[in-house]
């Protein structure tokens, strides 16, 4: 692929979409905040020119919808502008959420793999567990999270682990589903081959089922890491947590600090994007080590 076509096919459309979103956002901010500015002016007996009203709509302290530049400024102030140990630093809060996310993701992945191995090898587990695993995900996590956190707190478990367990609860599911499919993915002929060698179940697992399931595992991990982050944030909401992106969202909404809420939202989105990217990179490295044909990207 040559540079100019890459530019034309990837950079230009992406930038165009971003520009359109930003423009729409400014328009939306104007509409939503306009009445606040007008009401404020009437209160103070002032009359603004239209352009001054516009400008003020984009510069309110507690707007209904902050303008993009306000969110960017807040992001900048609360990351680069503060020491990372400061209680107002988004880096600090991001780290708190990230550590719960990663711990929960690790536990969820292990649990998911473990369950999938059992399900693939034991008919009883397939029949008895699968319905419960599916049912577990139909329970709204927003309802479960506070109960879980309160119960765990009552028995003395607090801090990182309860939040991580909510991530685990969410992230084990795609791993189970993906890995059951992956461990069952070997073709009949590959399984027959193992049979002609009189291979035992463990050998079939390590030499065939496990390597065959790796692409499925990574597909699951990409989903799993993103919902782990959501789990950790949800886990921070009901506790009146003092730290974490969830806590920032919550305190922002208590005090009407919409700019702070949006900055925390963007930080969470950025974190999710980075985590998915990291999983994607590891996938590429692992697949290359496993001799996969380098993928030719469609233009």
């Amino acid at each position: 692929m040559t540079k100019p076509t890459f530019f034309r096919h990837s950079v230009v459309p992406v930038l165009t979409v971003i520009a359109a979103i930003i423009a729409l956002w400014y328009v939306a901010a104007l509409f939503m905040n306009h009445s606040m500015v007008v009401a404020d002016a009437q209160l103070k007996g002032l009359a603004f020119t239209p352009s001054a009203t516009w400008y003020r709509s984009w510069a309110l302290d507690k707007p209904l919808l902050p303008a993009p530049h306000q969110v960017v400024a807040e992001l900048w102030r609360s990351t680069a502008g503060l020491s990372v140990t400061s209680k107002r630093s988004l880096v600090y809060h991001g780290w708190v959420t990230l550590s719960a996310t990663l711990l929960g993701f690790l536990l969820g992945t292990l649990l998911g793999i473990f369950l999938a191995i059992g399900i693939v090898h034991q008919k009883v587990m397939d029949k008895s567990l699968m319905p419960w695993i599916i049912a577990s995900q139909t329970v709204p996590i927003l309802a479960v999270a506070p109960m879980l956190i309160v119960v765990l707190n009552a028995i003395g478990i607090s801090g990182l682990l309860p939040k991580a367990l909510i991530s685990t609860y969410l992230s084990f599911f795609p791993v189970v589903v993906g890995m059951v499919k992956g461990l069952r993915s070997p073709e009949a002929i590959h399984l027959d081959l193992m049979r002609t060698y009189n291979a035992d179940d463990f050998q079939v697992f390590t030499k065939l089922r496990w390597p065959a399931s790796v692409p499925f595992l990574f597909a699951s991990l990409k989903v799993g890491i993103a919902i782990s982050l959501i789990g950790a944030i949800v886990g921070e909401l009901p506790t009146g947590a003092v730290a974490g992106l969830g806590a920032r969202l919550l305190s922002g909404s208590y005090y009407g600090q919409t700019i702070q809420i949006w900055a925390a939202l963007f930080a969470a989105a950025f974190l999710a994007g980075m985590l998915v990217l990291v999983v994607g990179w590891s996938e590429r490295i692992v697949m290359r080590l496993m001799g996969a044909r380098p993928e030719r990207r469609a233009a």
Partner: protein
Amino acid sequence: MPASMDVIDIEALSLTFETGDGPVQALSGIDLKIAKGDFVSFIGPSGCGKTTLLRVIADLEQPTGGSISVNGTTPELARLDRAYGYVFQAPALYPWRTIARNVALPLEIMGLTRAQQEERIARNLALVNLTGFEKKYPWQLSGGMQQRASIARALAVEPDLLLMDEPFGALDEIVRDHLNEQLLQLWAKTKKTVVFVTHSIPEAVYLSTKIVVMSPRPGRIHDIVESDLPRGPRPLDIRETPEFLKLAQRVRDGLRAGHSYDD
């Protein structure tokens, strides 16, 4: 044990698959003896049960009637004893293993030491002319080379019995001739028993000491042609001799006769 010389002894064997739209009789009334050192080909139109019969010998399918013994015992015990090497119609290489590690697969399972593995890998890859491709992954090789690698993998087990299901079916004529010649040399040298599935008459006649002509619906043996061509390595141009052509004609007639009733 009444030690017969037969590596494979099949009597009145039948196999019916239960499928969604009723039973499919894949094999019926199969009687066949294969002696040690024989090179036996199964030939017949597709769907006549060649693969199924080979899979029964390999204990990959269970017959529904009759009896079969392999090495004087049941196919299952023979399989557990790793008595045979099986070459599938497709190479069935594991894509995440290099060619050398694919050949090593059965050796790892058998618990050979690394040194023993390396020795067998090198020897068998040389046998199929794949020296130098050890570190390649399957996708980097042509179809013919992949199939040769899968033959090396079957040979590495060093079985006395080799079961091959249309191993050269997907290859072009020249490669196929070459591999046929090599296979025959290997067979003559190692005195293995080979059961070989094909739908090519020249291939069957060129390779075999015994040609089993099969016909479909239900799959059964129509004719067994004993070859009077010399045993051992045969030059490729034996295919021009009158003896060869006569055998080929008999096989062709057998295939026609087996086919005629449903036209």
